């Protein structure tokens, strides 16, 4: 197991943008060894696609990208709402005060001069990723989702079914139950409502009484014909 994973339980992705293939190979080696998921791009266009697809945790971009330059990446990130929180470090072999200031004021978090040193890079990446954990969104209005879990219909009569599941269902709540067995009975057309406090069959296994609603006569007759009484 590598270091980055041990720390957070989640693999962090770092995108390095440089038109120099040797730099990319070097960065690939040190970042992968340090436990990060390494992504690379050599042009602005390619960077945009990679950013859209992977939303990397951190971007390292070279100032000079052939005819293009790293500022185009900074501008792109600012223009895309969904990417504006991604931290960016600019790298360059020409280091002067004007360029550094311009980079920082354009949205770069840090500036690193080339030649790159492995220890410095790893240190910086580690530090920035630690400072730039994404926030947890706590919803003001909780989004509703439809959840589906597996369960077992272990006992049945015309009034209700005993459902065994790892979910302890709340009482008087509508559910939907689907199975081949219910299909054959025609019971899948019924509505279902939980009733009462579930019984604990085993730790983490609950038996919930579920009432049938709106059962037709045909289904009731089929259930009566099951015959094996408990």
């Amino acid at each position, binding site marked *: 197991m590598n270091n980055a*994973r041990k720390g957070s339980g*989640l693999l962090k*992705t770092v995108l390095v943008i440089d038109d120099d293939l040797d730099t990319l190979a070097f960065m690939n080696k040190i970042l992968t060894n340090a436990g990060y*998921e390494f992504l690379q791009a050599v042009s602005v266009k390619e960077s945009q696609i990679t950013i859209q*697809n*992977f*939303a990397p*945790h951190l971007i390292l971009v070279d100032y000079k990208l052939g005819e293009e330059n790293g500022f185009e990446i900074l501008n792109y990130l600012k223009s895309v709402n*969904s*990417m504006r*929180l*991604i931290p960016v470090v600019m790298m360059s072999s020409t280091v002067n005060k004007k360029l550094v200031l311009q980079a920082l004021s354009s949205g770069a978090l840090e500036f690193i001069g080339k030649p790159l040193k492995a220890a410095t890079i790893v240190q910086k990446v580690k530090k920035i990723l630690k400072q730039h954990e*994404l*926030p*947890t*969104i706590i*919803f003001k209005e*909780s*989004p*509703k*989702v*439809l*959840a*589906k*879990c597996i*369960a*077992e*219909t272990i*006992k*049945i*009569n*015309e*009034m209700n079914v005993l*459902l065994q599941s790892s*979910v*302890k*269902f709340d009482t008087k*709540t509508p*559910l*939907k*139950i*689907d*199975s*081949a067995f*219910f299909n054959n009975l025609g019971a899948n*057309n019924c*509505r279902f409502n939980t009733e009462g406090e579930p019984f604990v069959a085993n730790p*983490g296994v*609950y038996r919930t009484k579920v009432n049938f*609603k*709106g*059962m*037709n*006569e045909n289904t*009731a007759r089929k259930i009566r014909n*099951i*015959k*094996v*009484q*408990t």
Partner: protein
Amino acid sequence: MSSTNQTILNLDDDPDFNNILRVILKKEGFKLKSATTPEEFAKLINKEPPLLCLVDINLDVAMGAGYQMIQAMRNRLGFELPILVISRRASQEDIGRALELGANDFIPKPIDDTYLIQKINQYLPRENFKPLPYFKVSQKDWPCEVSFNLEIYSLSEFGITFTSNHFLSKGTYLQVDGEFVRDLTGEQRPLKLSIHNSWIDEKSHRFMAFSEFNGEDIQLLSSVRAFIIKNSGARDNA
């Protein structure tokens, strides 16, 4: 259940049926008042609110008069009073329509005494009532899928925290779907998850359950990160 008022009110245009019903219910200690027309039914319901209503939705007077009756009752009396619909026409559409309009349940005609009494007990539970025995389901027929509603409390890069009145045990496998999920993943299919941790929120007294994202699923993690960046105002002021 109050011991003084044991009245059940029914609407059916067949006096013979009403007499049979009266006999069945009397044995259970209920007093039946019958109406043969909607007008009469309305008068009776206003005079003395019953414990429960049995309404035939297939009256001869006017097809579907029973449906209108249910709707009118819900509008005027709210949803407390149990309304059980009785009908000879047992099509699933009719039953569905009655339930949509606010009926609690359906009882097929001809009436099966046991079925009727058991149904009534579901809505008017009495002590010492003997429920129907269960049939054992053959084990091969046990597996089923259960669908229910959940709410999302929070979302981080690492996973989703659900909030619910249902308790989701650790290790529960879930498929979640809906507009939110599709927005989050950018995929047109449900998201598969398992529950890693469950607890009770002290403040809301609701159950909470955390599900961690699969760390190998780079595509999902990327979508989640993009979603969080897009939807969090956390660094807007920075």
